[in-house]
């Protein structure tokens, strides 16, 4: 492959890998900005991936070409409901939010696999017929160089994901709800004195994160794998968590980090087949661990200062100081 051809392959694939990460990471931004640590993103994503595939298989005859899109909504709904468990535990029951998140992760994969065995009698689902389609944007795809990179064989979900990042930025920084969300995450007692219902905002934030992580999972299963089994998600949720931190708890930052991690994942799977000498010489393991190592470095302050919301992970108990 020539250098340009390599780019024509790598860039669309990177964006495709990034889309589920963007959705999930921005979900994480909502939750953590409100002060609820959400390690459970992985389990919520698993739930979304599972519901997406099952809905797609069950209703493909009813909805035809629209099936994968409606499946995304179904996944969003179920994962949002599932995330209420995390909200109840961490907001109302004052549970350790990390432990509750770990429980959500274990429960998500357990429920999904249990249901798969119940429905299909085997460890993974059938393959779906209607994946999320790739589209070629008319006119724009004819632009030299940029066209084949960004506008050919593009997933509609990737466009949605990038748009979501800007919508999330607007919601968090430009609306009253966003201001309340951030204030609840920084100083819940001050927010409470100003008449903001801390518990309500936190519930809303966790449920939003559940819905977005559900969409993320359903995008992953309906673009990348086409079926659901125990290894379908396998760490994507934690990578989204990493993207959220690497993006410094900011929607646009998370977008950038997710795109970069998508790029690293693409290199990891395709480094061997790229005909550029120095890339071929790098063992794939370095690309595999790159997102995680970078996140550690970012946290350590080597890549700018990353400040978590002040009240992140602290249950708010009315009346105590």
């Amino acid at each position, binding site marked *: 492959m020539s250098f340009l051809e390599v780019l024509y392959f790598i860039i669309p694939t990177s964006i495709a890998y990034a889309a589920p990460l963007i959705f999930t990471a921005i979900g994480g931004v909502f939750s953590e900005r409100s002060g609820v640590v959400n390690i459970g993103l992985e389990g919520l994503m698993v739930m979304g991936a599972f519901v997406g595939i099952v809905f797609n298989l069950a209703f493909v005859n009813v909805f035809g070409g629209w099936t994968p899109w409606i499946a995304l909504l179904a996944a969003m709904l179920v994962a949002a409901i599932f995330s209420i468990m995390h909200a109840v535990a961490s907001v109302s*029951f004052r*549970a350790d939010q990390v*432990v509750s998140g770990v429980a959500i992760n274990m429960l998500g994969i357990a429920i999904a696999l249990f249901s798969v065995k*119940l429905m299909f009698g085997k460890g993974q689902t059938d393959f779906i017929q209607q994946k999320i389609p790739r589209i070629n944007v008319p006119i724009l795809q004819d632009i030299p160089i940029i066209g084949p990179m960004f506008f050919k064989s593009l997933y509609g979900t990737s466009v949605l994901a990038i748009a979501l990042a800007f919508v999330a930025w607007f919601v968090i920084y430009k609306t009253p709800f966003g201001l309340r969300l951030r204030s609840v995450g920084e100083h819940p007692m001050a927010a409470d004195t100003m008449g903001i219902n801390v518990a309500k905002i936190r519930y809303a934030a966790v449920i939003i994160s559940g819905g977005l992580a559900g969409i993320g999972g359903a995008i992953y299963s309906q673009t990348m794998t086409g079926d659901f089994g125990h290894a379908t998600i396998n*760490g994507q949720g934690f990578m989204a*968590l990493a993207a959220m931190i690497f993006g410094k708890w900011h929607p646009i930052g998370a977008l950038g980090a997710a795109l970069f991690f998508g790029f690293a994942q693409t290199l990891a799977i395709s480094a061997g087949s790229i005909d550029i000498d120095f890339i071929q010489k790098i063992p794939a*393991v370095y690309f595999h661990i790159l997102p*995680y190592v970078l996140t550690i470095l970012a*946290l350590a302050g080597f890549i700018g200062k990353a400040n978590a919301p002040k009240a992140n992970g602290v249950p708010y108990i009315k009346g105590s100081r």
Partner: protein
Amino acid sequence: MSNRVVSLLVPVISIILGLLVGAIVMLFSGYDPVNGYIALWNGIFGDSYAIGETIRQISPYILAGLAVAFAFRTGLFNIGVEGQLMVGWFAAVYVGAAFELPMIIHLPITLLAAALAGAIWGLVPGILKATLRVHEVIVTIMMNYVALHVVNALIKTVSGGSYKTEKIQPTASLRSDFLSNLTDYSTLHYGIFVALAMVIVMWFILEKTKTGFELKSVGFNENASQYAGMNVKKNIVLSMVISGAFAGLAGAMEGLGTFGSMTSQGGFTGIGFDGIAVALLGANTPLGVIFGASLFGSLKYGANNMPNAANIPLEIVSIVVALIIFFVASGYIIRVGLQRLNKKKEAK
């Protein structure tokens, strides 16, 4: 009700609630929960083979539980037991296969290698926490994935492109013909004694040494400890290192006892995450960890009998385990419930 009784009741109620919800799930999925739990019971205690395998399963659970509990006592959440276990497993298998030594030297060195590998994997988040105040939860999660990919790459390298390492030398093996014969040829090995010895080690460090006192003190209040002249940073690093060493030994259980080699891993073993449950249920005490590990180890192994004997997917047990963690974590609400109950009684 005294505080002590409530502290004991919370895990017990959580277990009962977990099993109850599990039964409801089975009922709604069209399975017979009574049959299911009988199959689970038989899978754990049914015959001497099952008992042997259950004890074998409990050994790494004890060590994983100790790892989480030890860090907890210093106020640290080591969610990276999974990764530390994996590097420990690999180190044990590598040293176990690469050298030819008499058993009396080889086995201790191999165990030490596993502990050391785990300790190094715990050292990184420890240092970052102590010097730069980086939250250990995120770093250890990231270290898990680094471990997963690095270990898989190492397996490929040392085995010359294969997905499985060589078998370890018999001089490094924890396998025991005696224990195996005793339990109808199960894979029960001497690892359980290593695990129990480590329980005593943890108890000794925490309760009988100055270091242990400092570690616990830092866990209670960093500022007070600092003011009292303790080196908080050193204690944080030390706690993560010891925790990692326990986790590394848990990996050695799998490498030297159960499997005798290491296969390329598609995902995590789950033992490390279950270790969180074990520690939580055992209230982070050495003795509690034995109980927690016995419960979760038994559930995990006994579950294997459920698909055959009762035709129920074994994931039901994972659901139950996750629910138990969830309920223990939500202990606040159980406490409130118990107090209300108590007040009503007193009012009468």
